């Protein structure tokens, strides 16, 4: 019986070898995944041994700071501006995963990033404790403040919405606000139980305060999408200029349909014949629906939307690999019907005016306006301007990056002209966006969103000075109801004015 006993010994050896190999897999191969897993509630006490770096806006004001506590966890993460920057910056709780920029830059803020390796090695010799670095953002104090205040105090008393402001020439995010917001200090508190309870409360709040409506959600864009329809039409047919005559009318009935009809927001705004510019100025549904079906077609409409960034997540440059900021891709939907995916003219007609299955994020809206203002060059958005070592030397700087050129300079110039008209014409829908001293262009949007709740109000636009783009903005008012787009335009104007004033552009 000794031979089988020896073999049983080998079996035991094999069983233990399996355990050993599996433990290697869990503790070495998967170690980083598990250590940084959002469900891993372990307090990384070592991260609290020294001050976590600050997160600072473009005006040098700290959005996230560290306060000495004299407790086991030596530093408390604080957010002095409370809920104003909550969604952009995220939060760093003791026992949950950090979010957004706090998560993305965690290593650098703590001081363990590869970029700080030289510092750490130097620290070995100088005896100086390596400290966390600072993260400097592109966000402009005045713009963010204006966006937060004006959106919050909107005249329609709408509770939720978003504002995104971009520098059209670089893609730098100047403001990013989502409402309702929350105070991240509630989550970073060292009282773990309170933090957990606060998180649960925020998470279960039906108003979804932790949702970043500016980048994370997509909504029907309504008439703001007509910019893409117009861009597609003008790219297809170069003879189509803002002054070219197009067919309008009270109704549009696509071919091969009997009961389906597109009509305008109001009767009488849209004559049978009018210029393309006028059609955009008064937001004529019948013109753009007809153009979508008869001149452009589903494929080219979708292609133009994709050229502007639809179907792709518009990730921030620094967040390109991880998407910790959770930016969502905008979609056009298939515009087909039936099992065979045949192009459905009513679907194309509705999609051309930003309805049906077309969904867009406020960030994408701001990017579209920025691209038009920037002569057709779409820049990749970014929020982190610089990473700064503890000794205030630069560790890294984000270089602006051109993403795509969805439209030619001519088409961009035409669109600019048409969008100026929306704000400057007596019958334009976006008059309330006007800012004295700046050339403001834009497009309003009123979008039905299925349910009985009020329509969403949109405005996407830009301000230029002496032919150069200054700022682009998207304002979104969720379920705003009547007057939503005009109010969105008014807020957009104030946000753009705040940025221009801060920059001294008059």
């Amino acid at each position: 019986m000794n031979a089988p006993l020896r073999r049983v010994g080998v079996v035991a050896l094999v069983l233990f070898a399996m355990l050993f190999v599996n433990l290697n897999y869990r503790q070495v191969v998967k170690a980083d995944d598990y250590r940084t897993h959002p469900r891993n509630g372990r307090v990384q006490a070592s991260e609290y041994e020294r001050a976590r770096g600050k997160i600072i806006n473009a005006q040098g004001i700290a959005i996230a700071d560290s306060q000495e506590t004299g407790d086991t966890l030596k530093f408390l993460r604080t957010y002095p501006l409370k809920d104003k920057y909550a969604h952009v910056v995220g939060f760093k709780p003791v026992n949950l995963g950090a979010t957004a920029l706090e998560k993305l830059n965690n290593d650098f803020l703590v001081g363990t990033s590869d970029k700080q390796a030289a510092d750490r090695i130097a620290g070995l010799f100088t005896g100086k404790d390596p400290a966390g670095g600072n993260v400097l953002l592109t966000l402009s104090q005045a713009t963010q403040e204006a966006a937060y205040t004006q959106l919050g105090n909107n005249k329609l008393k709408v509770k939720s919405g978003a504002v995104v402001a971009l520098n059209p020439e670089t893609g730098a995010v100047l403001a990013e606000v989502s409402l309702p917001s929350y105070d991240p200090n509630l989550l970073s508190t060292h009282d773990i139980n309170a933090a957990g309870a606060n998180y649960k409360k925020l998470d279960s709040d039906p108003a979804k305060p932790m949702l970043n409506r500016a980048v994370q959600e997509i909504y029907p864009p309504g008439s703001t999408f007509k910019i893409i329809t117009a861009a597609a039409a003008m790219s297809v047919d170069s003879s189509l200029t803002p002054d070219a005559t197009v067919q309008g009318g009270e109704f549009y009935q696509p071919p091969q349909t009997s009961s389906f009809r597109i009509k305008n927001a109001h009767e009488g705004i849209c004559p049978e014949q009018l210029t393309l510019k006028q059609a955009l100025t008064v937001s004529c549904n019948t013109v753009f629906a007809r153009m979508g079906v008869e001149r452009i077609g589903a494929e080219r409409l979708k292609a133009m939307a994709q050229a502007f960034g639809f179907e792709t997540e518009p990730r921030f440059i620094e967040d390109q690999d991880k998407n910790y900021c959770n930016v969502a891709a905008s979609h056009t939907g298939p515009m087909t019907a039936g099992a065979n995916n045949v192009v459905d003219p009513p679907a194309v007609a509705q999609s051309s005016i930003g309805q049906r299955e077309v969904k867009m994020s406020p960030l994408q809206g701001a990017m579209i306006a920025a691209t038009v203002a920037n002569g057709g060059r779409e820049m990749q958005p970014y929020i982190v301007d610089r990473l700064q070592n503890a000794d205030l030397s630069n560790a890294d700087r984000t270089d602006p990056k051109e993403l795509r050129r969805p439209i030619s300079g001519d088409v961009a110039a035409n669109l600019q002209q048409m969008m100026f008209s929306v704000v400057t014409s007596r019958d334009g829908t976006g008059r309330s966006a006007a800012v004295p001293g700046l050339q403001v262009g834009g497009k309003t949007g009123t979008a039905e969103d299925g349910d009985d709740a009020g329509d969403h109000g949109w405005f996407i636009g830009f301000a230029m000075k002496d032919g150069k783009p200054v700022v682009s903005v998207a304002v979104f008012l969720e379920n705003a109801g009547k007057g939503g787009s005009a109010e969105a335009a008014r807020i957009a104007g104030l946000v753009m004015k705040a940025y221009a004033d801060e920059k001294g552009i008059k």
Partner: protein
Amino acid sequence: MTATAIPSPSPTDPGGGAGAPRPHTRRNVELGLLLFVAAILVVYAAVVEGNAIGEVTPDFWVQIAILAVIFAVAHLAIRFLAPYADPVILPTVALINGIGVAFLRRLDLARTKAPLRADLSVFGGDGFRQLGWTAAAIIGAIILMLIVRDHRSLSRYAYTLGLAGIVLVLIPAVLPARFSSINGAKLWIKFPGFSIQPGEFAKICLLVFFAYYLVRKREVLSMASKRFLGIDFPRGRDLGPVVLVWLLSLMVLIFEKDLGTSLMYFGMFVVTLYIATVRVSWLIIGLGFFLGGAFLAYFLGKTVGGPFLNFSERATTWLDPFADADNKGYQLVQSLLGLGTGGLTGAGPGAGQPTKVPEVRTDFIFSGLGEEIGLFGLTALLVTYLLLVERGLRAAINVRDSFGKLFAGGLAFTLGLQVFVIVGGISQLIPLTGQTTPFLSAGGSSLVANWLLIGLLLRISDASRRPAGGAPSIGLGGVSTGGGGGAPVQIQELPTEVVR
């Protein structure tokens, strides 16, 4: 004693041929190893306090000192009761047991608010309770060695013990859930204030029976009838006992809702069967039966539900614990995250947050340890377990009687299998089951039962290394050349005899 008789009784004793008339008992080696273990434990306890409290308190050594006294008593008892026993067995168990006590003490600290930790009494908490159980378990093992002076005498009570084993296994299944169910596994008998896990004791009882039964029946069971793919398969009518044990373990699986225990009993039986018959076919049949049974239970759980539901849920959790990370997968997810956080070197004893893992005192103690001592530490622990298993198997190889071989082999392998089942479970190698980690997990039943097992293993090891002159059965000298006259039955292995 003639000179020719000397080599045969102590074949593995390197000191045996050194010219001394009496082979070394190697008790001093054991003492040395125990001192080494005590040193490791003292350092571990000090590091725990340094990390968890921030200072090493003046009485950090108290629990380890008590443990050292307990192990010293065990050592002295072995000097008298089993002087020739393998000197490695006690120190390996002492190391694992000691780490268990120290880690439970560490968990006591973790549950105390930071400022109060320095004042936490060493005479309380789970650590001290485990210390008490260790003392009780070792006293139990010593008493067992006192009673059982010759392991072969156990075979006389084989049927009684076998029946007792089955009763012990089945009590929790028969009892209503409120008296027997903890965390979904019906493995307990709950008394007010404490609970015992009868299955831990049933293990040993059943092994005695298996060993006895298989020694008796091995000729029949190793009879081959069909040859398939070069492997001899037994006759259909000889499958009876295997099917019976299989049914028993399936009942355990279904009614006690515990795959681990079921796997333990069945694995134990199949392996002893294999050792007895040297038929690989039994291993294949056994594995096939078990996998088939488990798959059937999984399938029935998916379709029929009812008593099978628990198992299929566990299997689903095993396949993707993160799918339901907040409920069914919570334990396993937290266990994996703990292991991952520990990484290669671990956070250091006392520096992790093992209380994030549920049931870290019992089922998940290995992942709690993994976070703090890392892969290096866990590997050291696994090697210690493996050493213990291999030493047990060596005792089985060296002991001269069939019953002892089967019994010791079964004991050693069962221990290894239990470690495999629980450590594999908490690290997502196999579906998670409610087994205790031998000598580590908090809990009296497991500790006492496993120390009794060690007591028996020491007894057999003693018999295997005892020189012929000191053995209770005189007259073994000539046996190595053929059937010995005065030897007890089944003293010699003649596997060729049974093939017809």
